[in-house]
């Protein structure tokens, strides 16, 4: 039934790494939008005879080999064991969720990881949560693919608001600092 799919997706929680919020994967193709929002579109991949549903819109972070990153997530059972694995099956760490089902820890990118995008999976019971990790070489120099780098801000809105506030306050200071005209 469709509605049970939605329920499953909502309960699945999220996995966060270095400030990025990730979507959860569940063994269901949650497609329906309710008044509470739309669950992510998912695709199913099959390996080793098993079927795993992976969200299409997993965020990607960029790291270098051997780098340590902070990860945290939620939606596990309280005290559940959380296993974080590399996409070749290497276990990056095993942790315990807290009494609210949240977990937070550090993982280290394997020093022998191949360059490119890898899928990192956090598993606790039936809940799987994902993050894409784009592994770069240790140093990147003189990269030029012919396009201009994007130079800008992704939080322009708040800055505009703060700027407007600053203008008003600055104007008030100027006004207040004027010497009143003598009669």
């Amino acid at each position, binding site marked *: 039934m469709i*509605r049970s799919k*939605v329920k499953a997706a909502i309960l699945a929680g999220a996995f966060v790494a270095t400030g990025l919020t990730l979507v959860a994967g569940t063994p269901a193709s949650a497609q329906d939008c309710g008044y509470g*929002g*739309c669950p992510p579109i998912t695709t199913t991949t099959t390996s080793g005879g098993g079927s795993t549903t992976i969200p299409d819109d997993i965020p990607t972070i960029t790291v270098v080999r051997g780098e340590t990153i902070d990860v945290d997530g939620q939606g596990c059972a309280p005290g559940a064991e959380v296993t974080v694995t590399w996409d070749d099956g290497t276990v990056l760490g095993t942790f315990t969720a807290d009494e609210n089902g949240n977990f937070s820890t550090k993982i280290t990118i394997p020093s022998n990881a191949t360059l490119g995008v890898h899928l990192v999976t956090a598993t606790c019971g039936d809940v799987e949560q994902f993050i894409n990790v784009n592994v770069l070489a240790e140093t990147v120099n003189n990269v030029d693919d012919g396009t201009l780098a994007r130079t800008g801000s992704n939080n322009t809105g*708040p800055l505009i608001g*703060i700027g407007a506030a600053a203008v008003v306050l600055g104007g008030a200071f100027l006004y207040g600092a004027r010497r009143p005209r003598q009669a």
Partner: protein
Amino acid sequence: MSVLPTSNPTAPARSRLPGWWPWALGVMLGLVVVGPGLSGGSLLSLDLLVTPDIPVPNGVYGLGPALSQRVPLFAILGVGSAAVGGPVITKVFLVVCLATGFAGAARLVRVMAPAGTEVGALGQVAAGVLWAVGPYALTRVGVGHINLVWVVAVLPWVLPRLCRPADHLPSTYLAALAMAIGGPGGGTLGVTAAAVALLVQPAPRRHLRPAAAVLIPQLVWVLPTAVLLWAGAGVTGAMGFSTRADGVAGWPALLAGNGFWRQDHQVGATGFVGAVAGLIIGLLALAGGIRIVRTLGWRSWQGAATAVGVTGLVLALASALPLVRDGYEVLTDLPIGAPLRESQRFTALWLVWAAPSAVIGAVSVGRWLTDRAPARARLVRAAVAAVPLAVALAVSVPGWWGVDGRLEPVEYPAGWAAVRETIADRPGTVVALPWLEYPQLSFADGRQAFNPMPDFLGGDVISSYDPLFEAGGDHQEQVDRRSVEVDRLVAELEAGQAVSRQLADLGVRWVVLARERGAEDYAALAADPGLDPVLTVPDVELYEVRDWSGRATGPDGTAHDVSRPIPPLIRTDAPDGSVLSVAGAPGWVQGWARPVAVTGDGRLRLEGTGGTLWFWPAIVILVTDLAVAGLGIRCLASRRGRFGRILAPVRPRG
């Protein structure tokens, strides 16, 4: 007896600005907010549903399909839409409401200020921005809660009157009526404000008449709502509408207008900036409130407004506080408590007081500081007085241009218009797919919106009213019980089964499938031998049910004609026992008094040869509406006779 709520008896220094400047600035800000939408096209964003023709909602007759926040306001918009089109009337409405709200808040701060408190034009702008184009108003514009946009326009003008409901009953009646036009959203806010004011100003002998003056106008939305509840409309899961106050920053941000139940639709006042802004507004409003109550007392309208503001904040918090939340959910899960759902809307009562009060507080704080440190007094006063405007701008400006993209204009796909024309030529009941109340629409930049198909197509369209808050079972929030049958058919469709036979039995002639997210679930339509594909274009598919047996089906299976000149009136020549392809509901009467039966699948069945069928509650509702409006006209005349001007809710004394 105090004739009217009093304002600052000390005449303020004459401003060099013309009196109409708040209106001019308000219109300008309204135009900026609607901004990208001015270029033409419709609007689609969550509950903001604008189609080329906005229909008068069936709710004004007490007919479904669902409980409507649109009644009675959308009856006015519907009439306007007939003249200039849905998009134009909606955009004009938004600009006018925001401008009126801005001017109202700019005026409110002036009349609310105690004697000797000079708020100045800067303070008026601050109050206007925070109230009319601040996070609360922008969020409600962005999600299309038109009834609350109406509240933004009206509340600052009527607040003084609602805070002294016993002073002049005709004025109180008009103020309450103005709020009631906003439907359940506006009406509950108006009633709450007046109820708090009556409690703050104890005079038990005089409570009954003011209470009647406030409650009688609410009939314009209470009666249709009661009829729909009686007919079987429902509400599911109030839990999803809790005020959101996530994290440490979430709580103080509520004071600045944050907390909308869907955080992805909250505009402004988010994160650290929102938290700091909320704290500053809260502290300044507290200072202003102390000044108001100390100077004017609780029994002044300003004092009552203070109580109203605090009550609004408490109600908004009610669904967010861990322990209180449970009780609030129990209350709002009940049909009688349903109008109190989504408690963040009560933030309006907080902000309409907090915006001017913060300005008054800033002036008071500036004076307090300079009294203790006279050096650079002018600088300190100017800087502190500018803080409310700076804070208001910090949380509002980012959302001004098109409300974070939510007012980007939308063009309906050409295929939709072709479907509408085809169905208009050969009318019949339509099932709209995907079977979602809030589909995600590719032609609206992927925004999620209330299913526009029924309004766009017009006529008898069965669509889902399941908000999908709960899994399993029947969660259709509509009177039209045919939808429960379609629930079942959709499950069969998704399983790959043919459903044309059952659709014909349900009296359905057309199936429209918008090719949007989730459309792939209905692949079985194309393979169903009982469905004729009439139109297949990239945007939409239209199928005709081959065995459709007419808009009225006789006991022998013969087709009969049905006409419906207005929603609560049906004419047919079908014989006794015929079933009409019309959503059934208790209250339909055949001839003078014979009740019309409702079939198990939710249609009307005649018990006697055709003729005229009518929905008797519609008569009661329309007569009540006329009576309420007539009383309003009488109050208007009484008010004008007494005060000489219509729009003069507050007059300086002395």
